[in-house]
């Protein structure tokens, strides 16, 4: 039933991965099973349209609007749907808030689950064995790899995304950001700060190079 076999069909394809993808794409295209233009469209979507700028918009709004933040933390799905940030790999969202007492951090130890409509396609490190293996056991040492140290009084809560629920971290609003509008605030919100491996930038940092 689990379909274990020693001679996996993929072994007959070219071993070079780029050629392997190309071979499969060619076969499928020839049979009319995929449309190369649809592949281009998918790639364009995640390369240019859907990415961490969406999540940053949500965070900036939550920092600016207490009622929005309360609704987002209570039940994120309708709030995000209204903003148009719904879709594949973001069907069931939970937003978790960082405080001085608790820092949140997200991982998927079993594969690479990640909130695509809000953050796009996960970065390489998020999918790496090192992050998947270590984030649950030694989150503070992993944060040190990102140059981040938490105070001893801050507890770490690591969310292992084992179901179809996807988690977004709401980072703490940085000092010195009073009076900034939502566009300026969004520029302080890095992708990593919404995964929990960074803090939001302060205005002195000049924002996050997006």
């Amino acid at each position, binding site marked *: 039933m689990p379909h274990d076999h020693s001679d996996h069909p993929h072994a007959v394809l070219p071993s070079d991965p780029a050629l*392997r993808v190309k071979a499969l794409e060619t*076969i499928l295209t020839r049979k009319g099973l995929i449309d190369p233009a649809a592949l281009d469209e998918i790639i364009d979507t995640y390369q240019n349209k859907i990415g961490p700028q969406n999540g940053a918009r949500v965070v900036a709004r939550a920092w600016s609007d207490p009622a929005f933040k309360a609704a987002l933390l209570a039940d994120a799905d309708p709030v995000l749907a209204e903003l148009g940030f719904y879709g594949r790999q973001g069907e069931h969202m939970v937003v978790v808030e960082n405080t001085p007492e608790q820092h949140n951090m997200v991982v998927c130890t079993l594969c690479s689950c990640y909130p695509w409509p809000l953050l796009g396609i996960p970065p390489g490190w998020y999918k790496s064995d090192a992050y998947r293996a270590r984030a649950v056991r030694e989150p503070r040492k992993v944060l040190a790899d990102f140059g981040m140290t938490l105070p001893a009084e801050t507890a770490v809560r690591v969310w292992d995304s084992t179901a179809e629920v996807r988690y977004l971290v709401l980072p703490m609003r940085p000092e010195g950001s009073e009076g900034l509008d939502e566009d300026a605030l969004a520029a302080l919100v890095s992708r990593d700060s919404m995964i929990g491996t960074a803090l939001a930038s302060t205005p002195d940092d000049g924002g996050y190079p997006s």
Partner: protein
Amino acid sequence: MSRLHDMGGRFGDGAVVPDAPDAPVFATDWHARALAVTLACGALGKWNIDVSRHARERLSPKDYTRYTYYEKWISALADLLVETGVLTRKDLQGQGEMGLGEKELHALASKALKAEAVAAVLAKGGPANRDSTIAAGFAPGDRVKTRHPGGSALVNGGHTRLPDYAAGASGEILLQHGAHVLPDSNAHGLGEAPEPLYAVAFKASELWAHPEHPNDEVVLDLWQSYLEPEAQE
């Protein structure tokens, strides 16, 4: 007992290396093509997300270890296409024999994802929540214990979303997510079998011999059949 993908807590992987802030979404062109081909083939309707996750997990340990991320995707996709009868091994072997211009339309070609449908399909997503006849047995604040031994209770060596590091551990219900499709069943053609799903919080000291901090926690999303009430002391 478990497979290589179930790596939470494992030792020896070294440092996490953050990407440069300006790193591209796809490191190379074939990564992008691998993702897009995989998503497009999903539209053929021959498998679900749990089947495709399991296909990656059951790559041989040797392949799982030596393949990079998108190599796992593309290899598991080739396996699935043959196992579900969409393609034959001969198709894969003979891929170089015909000219690019020649076409031999497949019976499933009418299902192929068209460029103009991509935006709508990605926006629609595939929600996993369902009505269930199984009543919620736990509420936030309840103490629970996860199944031990871990692994799939339905299929020997089958797909499950209970990581080995959290098998047999005591925790507390944090959130009730409603009822969701049970991957252990859905990955093996045994039906969606929806049941209540919870976020369960575990003290780091419950999971690890050397926790970093007494107040740290790990939260996992776990289905009701993974859980039992914690025995009263």
